[in-house]
């Protein structure tokens, strides 16, 4: 028997209905967007031409989807076999996060029918950071579907192909670590070209390093986050001990991130902006606080063995990484005083709808495919499944 098993249970529950409804609303709004243009549903303008669809759905969305990347690096490169049970659920969430991030790109692109130019050698511009991001994300989505294929094959009972695939899997695992390292850092490089349009507290040549470090840390945190939620939602056994161990890695990475971030600001002589920069100083300090909360929480061993505290720490790290991205791409970005931007309601509803669809699909697949780690105690699986 495989060590992963479907959770089972009813499909139509209050949670899935609400998620489905939210997704329906966004589909309706997207139809309007495709008929009347981007401006019909969004507040995008020539100053802030990238809004929450780019920043939240794509940039933050794919950082949240770094769980698979984070676990793969931990388990297969640093040989931490003890975390093995966390790999497949993380991979599933990543696969959805990235696939939907890719779809979000499609409805944000003004001339979406030309999207294939991104991967056609006749068009691509190797100097463009966005080309590199686009091509890497595209490849990575394919790699993840291949990595996940054994779960489908297992469900369908096609075992010979599955075995063959498993033998070659190390190739895809390696690609599945390289590609996100490349494009998560490039999402940071993408902002370098904006030069002085981005406040010096955020604009730096270290952006690629800071982006990939924080994305990786968000990936680890999202694994804790998802494990806690599915323990609660699917009424499964908690994996607190394992997650607690992993949280020490998060602490280490945050400290490295903060050292580079602050060290770089000092080296560029911009330290005084931390307090003399008005509203932006405030945003910076909130960001720093969110990064520090998990460090402080996770200092003691007792805290690390508390499911609740682990969860709070993970959430704080996810917020920190998200705010870092929002600040860099929107708040600290200043295209001139005649422009302003705040997302419109339909714009937000579309983002919410996409996220709902992602969660919905995760629930459905976890119920029907062998994704979550099989429980040792038979009793636990029989309980009410509220999700």
């Amino acid at each position: 028997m495989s060590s992963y098993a479907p959770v089972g249970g009813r499909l139509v529950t209050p949670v899935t209905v609400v998620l489905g409804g939210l997704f329906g609303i966004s589909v309706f709004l997207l139809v309007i967007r495709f008929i009347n243009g981007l401006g019909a549903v969004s507040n995008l303008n020539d100053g802030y031409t990238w809004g929450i669809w780019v920043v939240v759905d794509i940039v933050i969305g794919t950082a949240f989807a770094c769980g698979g990347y984070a676990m793969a690096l931990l388990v297969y490169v640093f040989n931490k076999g003890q975390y093995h049970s966390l790999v497949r659920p993380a991979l599933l969430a990543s696969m959805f996060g990235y696939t939907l991030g890719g779809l979000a790109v499609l409805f944000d692109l003004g001339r979406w029918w030309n999207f294939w130019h991104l991967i056609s050698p006749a068009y691509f511009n190797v100097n463009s950071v966005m080309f590199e991001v686009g091509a890497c994300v595209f490849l990575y989505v394919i790699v993840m579907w291949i990595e996940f294929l054994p779960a489908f094959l297992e469900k369908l009972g096609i075992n010979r192909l599955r075995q063959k695939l498993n033998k070659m899997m190390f190739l895809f695992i390696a690609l599945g670590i390289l590609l996100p390292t490349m494009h998560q850092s490039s999402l940071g490089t993408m902002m370098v070209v904006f030069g002085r349009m981005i406040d010096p507290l955020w604009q730096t040549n270290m952006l690629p390093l800071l982006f990939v470090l924080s994305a990786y840390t968000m990936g680890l945190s999202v694994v804790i986050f998802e494990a806690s939620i599915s323990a609660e939602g699917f009424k499964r056994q908690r994996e607190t001990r394992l997650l607690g161990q992993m949280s020490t890695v998060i602490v280490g990475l945050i400290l490295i991130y903060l050292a580079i971030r602050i060290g770089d600001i000092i080296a560029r002589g911009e330290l005084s902006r931390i307090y003399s920069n008005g509203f932006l100083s405030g945003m910076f300090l909130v960001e720093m606080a969110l990064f520090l909360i998990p460090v402080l929480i996770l200092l003691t061993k007792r805290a690390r063995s508390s499911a609740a505290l682990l969860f709070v720490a993970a959430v704080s790290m996810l917020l920190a990484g998200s705010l870092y991205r929002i600040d860099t791409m929107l708040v600290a970005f200043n295209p001139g005083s005649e422009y302003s931007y705040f997302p419109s309601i339909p714009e937000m509803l579309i983002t919410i709808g996409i996220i709902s669809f992602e969660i919905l699909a995760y629930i459905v697949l976890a119920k029907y495919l062998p994704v979550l780690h099989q429980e040792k105690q038979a009793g636990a699986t029989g309980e009410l499944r509220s999700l």
Partner: protein
Amino acid sequence: MKRRDFLKGVVGSCAAMATVSGSVEARGNNPRLPGAVGLLFDSTLCVGCKACVTACKQANDKVLDVPADKPYLDRTMHLSPDALNVIKMYKNGKPEVKDREVDGFAFQKQSCMHCVDPSCVSVCPVQALLKDGTTGVVTYDKDACIGCRYCVASCPFQIPKFNYDDPFPEIHKCQLCNHLWSENKFSACADVCPTGATLYGPVEKLMAEAKRRTSLNPGEVTRFPRRDIEGKEFGREQKVVKYVDRIYGEKEGGGTQMLMLSGVPFDKQGLPDLHERSSASVSETIQHTLYSGLVAPAVILAGLVGVARRNTKNHTDESPEEDAHE
């Protein structure tokens, strides 16, 4: 111990990345092209008639926005998909004297600067924006464009404009009227300008002319060429106004092919104060350092494949072979 190894690994890879992203000398600014053509805009000559705004629209098939009684005066104030060129006004206090910073006013042309090392070309993922290898004109091809608007966001002058209310949007920006060259015509804005405030020609000559003007003494009388600097056509003789000691576009952001002269400081007129190093070169240096020839990714991939292979064997994955005969 093991955790320490892990952290060591992380610190090591970070340090490696930090050194590459720190060494930003690989690509300097792209140089000026010897055959570059462009515009010289001299704010002290501009009388604000906006004939160029109308002419630009006509040359580029755009909708005019003119009052019925003054069909020559286009009201457009901002660049948009329907306006590739606008004249903006600077006003301070009681705007009494032209080209004076305090209690004065001035006019400023806004259109694509045809950067020497343009951000928009560097960022465009699909080569929809290209810089001509001879003339340096920055052109746009809607059939290649995917509408990602990276160009819109990255242009330091906020030039490219996009239709948000159109299901089939395009990017709109000045392409120096290169579509008129085959008819032996040139930039409509320069062609129509009555005073020579907007002047067309090879950038080398425009630069020499700009330097000549800034070296003249205020009050001196001189002739200003009109339309095309090579056309030997002159506007009226005129007294030189005091220029600010800077040719905007000589160095800014790696230089531009539209040069500007003014009596009022450029930053007061809303032009950005850019580094001399082009943003495109900073960004491409990082990108090339990390990815040139895909050498680094290939090496890392080889390493990852080796390690992943060993480690998948160590602790067999989710559905190992020996489980298969269920």
